[in-house]
């Protein structure tokens, strides 16, 4: 350390200790927020139902309801020409400026810690989630979390404190922090540039999965972070599926059910903490990720053998033109505040020139009541300053999508990242 800095280090003023009472109060406030699902309680506005009246084409992708907003239909001048010829039934073709919304049910173990840092109580925490993430990571996203009734830890009673207070819905802004995640990005624009070759993808899982410990587990865990609340083009989905299969210890199990009761093929690997087997469940036809499951497979583990400690289902993936109204009042996200003005407030709202995305087609399948699609609304704008180029949009889209990140980029760096809201690594020993 340089002298001038050392002087300050040695001259640091006394710091009064954190008073026990104030500390407990702050901790409790945090826990209250956590128990309420992250924030405010708000009644879902009418906007939802209104949005559903407009055309949303719902198709089934291997049991996953995929709402196709503006796919090859409707008068959207910017898209119909390019996408109608390209549309593969059941595949989404998100464009920059749009958002991918993933809706899911989740159940994970929840552990509260005592002040000594030791586990004080545990139960299974459940929630219903919707997450909106910018297709190219350039705009802030949004996360809705709705509490679901918690379940006791297998073989135990539900802790008294968990019996109430789980209801409620929170809305949180997910700030875009361009450049922050680098190769850990999980936005569509980035994921669609990944190799469609299983061997290359496998190498990547190991490279980014982290060093030390159980590297096979880390690789698997990294794969999961790429799948959770994301959307990958089919080529990358299939390659990732094949890559995961080659991880030592992984085996395929047929007929594993996700939280929605849909059966799929699970790529399962034992070896996590608590004597569980981690199972990533896929649709065997489309390789869509259905959800994950954690099953206790060892005797004498933290829960009886055969019990389930985590279970999720990604119910639907849709492409929408903009965030729902709640975005305006969502909790801010200051997690990438420093020198990043975009992160502070609501997501961008100014219209994007040249990217109108009308969706006038009537629903051809059952309308998805939840799929928010505003019609003829200008997409959130793609920022115009250019820094470094972002990865191209998927190559199967014949002509460049308007406003693709190659043509415009985000203010600070086009290496935009989006929240890895999903990855809930269950285990890293």
């Amino acid at each position: 350390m340089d002298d001038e800095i050392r002087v300050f280090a040695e001259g640091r003023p006394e710091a009064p200790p954190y008073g026990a009472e104030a500390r407990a109060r702050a901790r409790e406030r945090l826990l209250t927020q956590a128990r309420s699902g992250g924030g405010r309680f708000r009644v879902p506005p009418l906007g939802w139902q209104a949005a559903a009246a407009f055309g949303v084409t719902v198709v089934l992708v291997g049991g996953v309801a995929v709402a196709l907003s503006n796919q090859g239909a409707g008068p959207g001048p910017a898209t119909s020409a390019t996408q109608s010829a390209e549309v593969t039934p059941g595949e989404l073709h998100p464009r920059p400026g749009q958002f991918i919304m993933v809706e899911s049910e989740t159940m994970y173990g929840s552990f509260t810690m005592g002040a000594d840092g030791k586990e004080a109580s545990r139960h299974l925490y459940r929630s219903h989630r919707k997450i909106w993430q910018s297709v190219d990571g350039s705009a802030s996203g949004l996360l809705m979390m709705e509490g679901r009734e918690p379940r006791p830890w297998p073989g135990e009673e539900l802790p008294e404190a968990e019996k109430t207070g789980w209801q409620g819905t929170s809305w949180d802004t997910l700030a875009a922090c361009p450049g922050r995640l680098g190769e850990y990005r999980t936005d569509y624009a980035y994921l669609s540039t990944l190799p469609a070759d299983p061997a290359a993808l496998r190498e990547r899982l190991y490279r980014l999965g982290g060093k030390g410990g159980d590297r096979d587990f880390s690789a698997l865990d990294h794969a999961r972070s790429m799948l959770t609340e994301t959307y990958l083009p089919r080529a990358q989905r299939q390659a990732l599926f094949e890559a995961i299969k080659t991880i030592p210890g992984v085996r395929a199990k047929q007929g594993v059910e996700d939280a929605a009761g849909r059966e799929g093929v699970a790529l399962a690997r034992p070896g996590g903490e608590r004597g569980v087997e981690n199972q990533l469940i896929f649709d065997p036809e489309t390789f869509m990720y259905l959800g994950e499951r954690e099953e206790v497979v060892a005797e004498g583990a933290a829960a009886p053998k055969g019990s389930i400690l985590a279970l999720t289902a990604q119910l639907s993936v849709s492409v929408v033109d903009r965030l729902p109204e709640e975005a305006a009042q969502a909790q801010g996200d200051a997690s990438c505040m420093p020198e990043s003005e975009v992160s502070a407030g609501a997501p961008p709202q100014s219209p994007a020139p040249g990217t109108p995305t009308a969706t006038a087609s009537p629903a051809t399948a059952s309308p998805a009541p939840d799929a928010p699609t505003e019609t003829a609304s200008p997409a959130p704008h793609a920022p115009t300053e250019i820094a470094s180029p972002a990865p191209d949009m998927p190559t199967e889209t014949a002509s460049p999508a308007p406003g693709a990140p190659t043509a415009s980029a985000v203010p600070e760096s086009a290496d935009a990242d989006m929240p890895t809201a999903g990855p809930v690594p269950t285990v890293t020993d």
Partner: protein
Amino acid sequence: MPDTLDDSTLIARSIGAPESFAALFDRHADEIHRYAARRLGGELADDVTGEVFLVAFRGRARYDPSWPDARPWLYGIATKVVSQHRRAERRRTAAMARVSVERPGTFDDRSADRVTAEQLQPRLARALTRLSAAERDLLLLVAWADLTYEEAALALGVPVGTVRSRLHRLRVKVRRALGGTDPFAEEPQHG
């Protein structure tokens, strides 16, 4: 077991199980409080610490999973929250800078060629007032929070190169403010 998980795993887990975030508080609250208290005093530090963890909690989905240690991230948030109390910090710094004036005997008492931290503080406080807010944030993250340059860069959301050049500039300013000599040595002018 959860208390051995690294921060980034804990944070990722807290996406699905928000209450696990309390473990992050248990781990780092004292340290963040200490930092806030040095900058703002104990009373404000209580508020700041609570606020830092609430902000962090709401933003946990944005956490960069490639950093196993959450301290730089938390210090970054703390820096931002502290900056909302600039006036309080200025008052505090000004008060610290005055101490030597109010106790003129302080430097006379010194017997060795080294002053104590307490005696040094007024001079450091005066030096601090010559720094820009960004320079002060950086200096104190490195000097008081013991962050490495890389961690400070992460906390402040700037490239490491920016940290280095900013440090260079502020060192020059500090040296000038401290009289161009080793402040631990005898002070040549008054005393």
